């Protein structure tokens, strides 16, 4: 069956936008029409990849349909391999794509990019890397979201049942910073320094960690632990992964004082605790049914210190971010083909 549609009355940007709205396509922002010519250009030199069915709809995307969504998102052909790697990564069973798309939780498909492809595409891992402004960040994350919406069928209000959603559902893509005093996260996870890697996780938007006053690593970690110790997070009871994205200045202070990702992880496991008194009685009862008990007089954040991943991104300033997850997901990393 042909995948080409004839839209006879669509002859300008406004008509295209109306046509998308009518069909339930797009994220509400303008898109670029995926004409056959643009899709062909997107696919020139595209790597061969193997893809499976995308829940909730259960349809397997083709390279052409992914390219069509990449065009709609504003991608350049050079961005497509990263989009393909991200689509492949969210299909890993551990990522739990179906659960993450159909849930009432506001999680979005977070994409962190490591390695040389960042510079080649202009991916931002510096100032405002989690915000607007860098085309590659914006369009790669958006292309993944559009693939999940159009091919996966995760339409808000129908198969995407998020209670409130989040701005991250439009696009949530950033690069690791080169200004890390430690191994980049991809290297921590066993990839070579020369590999270009995407790491995906069904994640909440970033929770800011503002600490201008602390002058030591231990003090900064006190603020980080306090930010992580919140009773409304999925990580408290579903457990699963979470990401500490340190700003380079906080990371530099920590490294100066001898902290490493391993010692930070161990310290936060002990100190990022949610006092039992901060959890309602009804929730405590429910946690017991889900097999979650406090450790003494406080709950841990997640069930294993290794579930906390640590990376560096951002620009000048005394801010970091904690990125909790859906819980029933994993941080999945894939080499960019």
């Amino acid at each position, binding site marked *: 069956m042909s995948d080409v549609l*004839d839209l006879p009355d669509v002859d300008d940007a406004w008509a295209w936008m109306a046509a998308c709205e009518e069909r339930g396509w797009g994220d509400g922002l303008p898109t670029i029409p995926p*004409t056959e010519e643009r899709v062909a250009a997107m696919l020139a030199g595209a790597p061969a990849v193997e893809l499976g069915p995308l829940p909730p709809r*259960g349809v397997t995307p083709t390279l052409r349909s992914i390219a069509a969504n990449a065009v709609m998102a504003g991608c350049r052909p050079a961005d497509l391999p990263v989009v393909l790697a991200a689509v492949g990564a969210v299909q890993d069973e551990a990522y739990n794509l179906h659960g993450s798309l159909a*849930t009432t939780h506001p999680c979005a498909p977070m994409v962190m990019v490591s390695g040389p492809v960042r510079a080649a595409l202009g991916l931002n891992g510096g100032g405002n890397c989690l915000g607007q402004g860098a085309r590659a960040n914006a369009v790669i994350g958006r292309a993944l979201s559009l693939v999940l919406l159009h091919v996966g069928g995760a339409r808000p209000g129908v198969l995407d049942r998020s209670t409130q959603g989040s701005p991250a559902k439009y696009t949530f893509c950033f690069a690791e910073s080169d200004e890390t005093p430690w191994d980049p996260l991809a290297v921590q996870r066993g990839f070579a320094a020369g590999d270009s890697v995407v790491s995906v996780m069904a994640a909440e938007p970033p929770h800011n960690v503002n600490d201008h006053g602390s002058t030591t690593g231990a003090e900064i970690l006190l603020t980080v632990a306090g930010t992580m110790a919140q009773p409304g997070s999925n990580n408290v009871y579903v457990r699963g992964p979470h990401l500490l994205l340190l700003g380079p200045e906080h990371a530099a202070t920590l490294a100066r004082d001898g902290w490493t990702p391993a010692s930070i992880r161990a310290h936060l496991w002990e100190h990022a605790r949610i006092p039992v008194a901060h959890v309602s009685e009804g929730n405590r009862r429910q946690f017991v049914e*889900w097999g979650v008990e406090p450790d003494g007089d406080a709950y841990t954040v997640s069930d294993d210190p290794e579930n906390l991943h640590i990376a560096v991104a951002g620009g000048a300033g005394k801010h970091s971010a904690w990125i909790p997850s859906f819980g029933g997901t994993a941080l999945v990393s894939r080499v960019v083909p």
Partner: protein
Amino acid sequence: MHIVDPTSGIASSETVAVAVSEGSRAGALCGLSNSKPGAHDLLEAVGRRLADDHGIGPNGLEAKPSAAVGADPELLDHLAAQYRLAVVAIGD
């Protein structure tokens, strides 16, 4: 304007098989909840009333490990082997 359909792909050939009841099993009816508190309470009440009013039993009640993940296939196989009927609740 001719465009490539962004929703296009290869449709799944997956179908859901309906297992036919094979003779008697130990249990009559099991509840399976999505693990949300409301779903669990609802199934518990429905099971109790079916037993009280209609003598349907013995009944069981199970749940997914959490709402965020799918049911363990081994649990589904176990329930299918033990019970004739299932009431599944998806609530929030």
